[in-house]
């Protein structure tokens, strides 16, 4: 694979390794990038893609291995050094400053100035040129970035990279926040860049995108490159998936136990609306049933579950658990009615990252363990440890700080929290985001087991396949409306997408 015939690669990476404490994030990555290509880096979450990017952009220093730039060995000891070489990075989390204008964002850190006085006109002129080049002449340089859509913020981020004289642009899952039209525009921009001789490292796990724009592919698994510099044309998808996962994705979903005919309705949502976001949501979940919400980013999925849970206050409608209506807009009421939510943003909405595992596991129950306001930490630790063992969260150390765990283990803590609480209704918003494929399968199994034990489960995921594979029934959501409700064995991913397209056209 390495004996490819390009004379000098722009970037050569050999045997790159990086550890964080005892965790080896990278353990031998090989990669070649030539000018003007789109080099796709594929891998499951946790495969080491982010660490690789951060090492190439100077945010991390490798422990071992070599990086060559135009044939010369280099050390990239910081983001500035990377920019000086000509490597710019567009991170997944948009790194723009909302309060500044487009031009100010683009020249942030390397302001155009004469004798300390900003050359605003020059900056505006060059910004207009960059926007032109990126296919967005409509965006004015003086527009405040906070008012832009995520897609346009991404354009600003890209323009910032281009404002430096760069030879290599690293894009970390740029399509994650974009709709299909915006993805098309992104691809046009990428093609323009490559025509100008700029190389692009494109990180994604959407295989169809890679087929569209990729030149070559490098696959990472568990921190090592398991396939380097594979040409896209001669590498069929069915060969890539086993490389990424080490297994066949088809078998990821465990068998679904049928819901018994006399299972009672546990959660009943009637005519729920949130002004300006979604309207008229009706749904019922029986004991032991898994219901999924399928829809694209921005369809209102997360808002619906957050409103059911009382995190947002419904404009109209009621939520009933076992026939008893919940007070609208009160999370405490929902939790008291034995409802639990594992939120979309695990880190920012779910966990106390600096606290030990057990305190996160008992965050909804520590008052129950306590006697007259006095904490019983020993009992909390025992309960947490018990759940950690049941969930195979290893090592089962309740005192470990939550931040040091992988995404999959953090997700298991969220499950442990509600298992200790003993919920009758469990809402899982993106239960496998940032979770690697092995842990993902375990989490699917746990969700199924919970349902089999009689919990009513509502699952939201941006991966339609996941909703369909996991749930008994799926509600298809678009533009804040429920378009259809189908048993999952009567609809496939294409069917859902068809409905979504038709629904938003109507």
């Amino acid at each position, binding site marked *: 694979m390495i004996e490819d015939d390009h004379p000098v690669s722009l970037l050569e990476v050999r045997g790159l390794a990086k550890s964080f404490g005892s965790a080896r*994030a990278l353990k031998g990555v090989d990669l070649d990038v030539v000018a003007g290509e789109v080099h796709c880096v594929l891998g499951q979450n*946790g495969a080491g893609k982010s660490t690789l990017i951060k090492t190439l952009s100077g945010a991390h220093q490798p422990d071992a291995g070599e990086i060559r730039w135009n044939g010369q060995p280099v050390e990239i000891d910081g983001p500035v050094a990377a920019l000086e070489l000509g490597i710019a990075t567009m991170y997944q989390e948009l790194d723009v400053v909302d309060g500044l204008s487009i031009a100010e964002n683009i020249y942030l850190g390397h302001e155009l100035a004469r004798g300390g006085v900003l050359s605003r006109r020059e900056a505006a002129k060059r910004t207009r040129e960059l926007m032109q080049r990126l296919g967005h002449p409509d965006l004015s340089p003086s527009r405040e970035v906070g008012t832009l859509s995520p897609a346009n913020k991404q354009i600003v981020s890209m323009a910032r990279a281009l404002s430096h004289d760069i030879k290599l642009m690293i894009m970390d899952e740029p399509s994650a926040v974009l709709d299909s039209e915006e993805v098309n525009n992104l691809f046009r921009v990428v093609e323009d860049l490559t025509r100008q001789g700029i190389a692009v490292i494109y990180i994604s796990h959407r295989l169809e995108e890679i087929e569209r724009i990729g030149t070559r592919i490098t696959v990472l698994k568990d921190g090592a490159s398991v396939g380097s510099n594979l040409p896209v044309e001669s590498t069929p998808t069915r060969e890539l998936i086993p490389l990424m996962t080490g297994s066949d994705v088809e078998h990821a979903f465990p068998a679904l136990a049928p819901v018994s005919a006399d299972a009672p309705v546990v959660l009943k949502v009637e005519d729920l609306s949130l002004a300006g976001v979604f309207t008229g949501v009706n749904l019922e979940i029986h004991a032991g049933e898994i219901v999924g919400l399928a829809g694209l980013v921005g369809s209102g999925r997360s808002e619906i579950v957050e409103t059911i849970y009382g995190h947002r206050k419904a404009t109209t409608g009621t939520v009933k658990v076992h026939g008893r209506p919940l007070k609208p807009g009160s999370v405490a009421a929902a939790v008291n009615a034995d409802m639990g939510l594992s939120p979309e943003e695990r880190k920012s909405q*779910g966990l106390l990252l600096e606290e030990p595992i057990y305190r996160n596991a008992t965050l909804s129950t520590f008052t129950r363990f306590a006697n007259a306001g006095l904490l019983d930490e020993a009992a909390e630790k025992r309960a947490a440890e018990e759940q950690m063992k049941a969930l195979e969260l290893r090592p089962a150390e309740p005192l470990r700080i939550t931040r040091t765990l992988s*995404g999959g283990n953090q997700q298991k803590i969220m499950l442990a929290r509600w298992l200790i609480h003993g919920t009758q209704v469990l809402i899982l918003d993106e239960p496998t985001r940032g979770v690697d494929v*092995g842990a993902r399968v375990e989490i699917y199994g746990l969700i199924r087991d919970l349902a089999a034990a009689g919990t009513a489960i509502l699952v939201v995921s941006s991966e339609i396949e996941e909703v369909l594979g996991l749930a008994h029934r799926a509600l298809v959501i678009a533009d804040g409306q429920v378009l259809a409700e189908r048993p999952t064995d009567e609809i496939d991913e294409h069917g859902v997408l068809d409905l979504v397209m038709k629904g938003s056209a109507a």
Partner: protein
Amino acid sequence: MSEQTTTPDASAAPATQHEPTASDAPNPVRRFLASPAGRSVGLFIAVLLLVLIGAVTAGENFMNIDNMLVILRYASVIGVVSIGMTFVITSGGIDLSVGSVLGLASVVATLGAIQTAAEGFWPLMVFVAVAVGVLAGLTNGLIIAYGKVVAFIATVAMLASARGLAELISQRQSQIVDNDGFQDFFRYDPLGVSWVVWIFAIISLAGWFVLNRTTFGRRTVAIGGNETAARLAGVNVKRHTVYLYMLAGGCAGIAATMLLSRAPAGTSTHGQLYELDAIAAVVVGGTLLVGGRGTIGGTVLGVLLFSTLTNVFTQNNLSSSVQLVAKGVIIVAAVMLQQRFANRTPAGGARLKQTDAAKAQAQTPA
């Protein structure tokens, strides 16, 4: 990162993945410094160092029991205010009004009518002072939690209003404390130690207990660590926020009583800039200004650090201006030192069993 997850693949991987390395080796000193108690060690050393400086420069005048009691007495009033402040800051909030509230409480408690009413039952003055503090805190809390005003602004507003109210009520006059029961009680020093020092000690112990051993404390830390996560787990964040500001106000009320026991009168100027002294003590003590981590022990040491400093300077006849400069330097130095300790052990105190963990992981059968 994925290596910590025991995926089927990872557990099937050879155990050599966890070769012991130098960085895995336990270092007891480092481990201790990363623990909650260890974080206060630097501060403790600083206080000892100051005592040493005092002993060297002022000799007998400094190193005697009476002077030590002076230092403690001086620390007590601001200390009690700082305990309340520790809770608010741990929850991610701030209370800038405590100094003004203290002044207001001192004025209301020494009103002629109250003192007359307290003729037969002097603790009434204490109740009134604490009630004024709690009410001011309730107002702060309601405005912050339900009015959704940022804590900084809401309490700056209270800082201004409470001071103004105190001036209106007292008509800018000193209100002499003239209650025999009250004065007699505080004139007596149990075991030779002033009541204010006892009160500071009791409030500190109670504060430590509440923060570390009760659901109230757990909620406080949880809200400071991640407010959204706490709310989504069912913690009533708004109600708890109100309680926290009531607690801070109540502490200011107690401090007002302590001040009255030593000062001749209640005036509207009591407690000026106490909020800044309290915040300095709390932050120097190691409580994170952004919330999520709080230490009562650190706060107590922070308060003692400043009162010892004042005493050492006074004993050496140095001006209070020099003192202020030194105070500023100490605040910056202490916070920078703490950050260095914190950065050296990024994983914090939780890596206590790091090597055991690695062993256990390596032994996990495939």
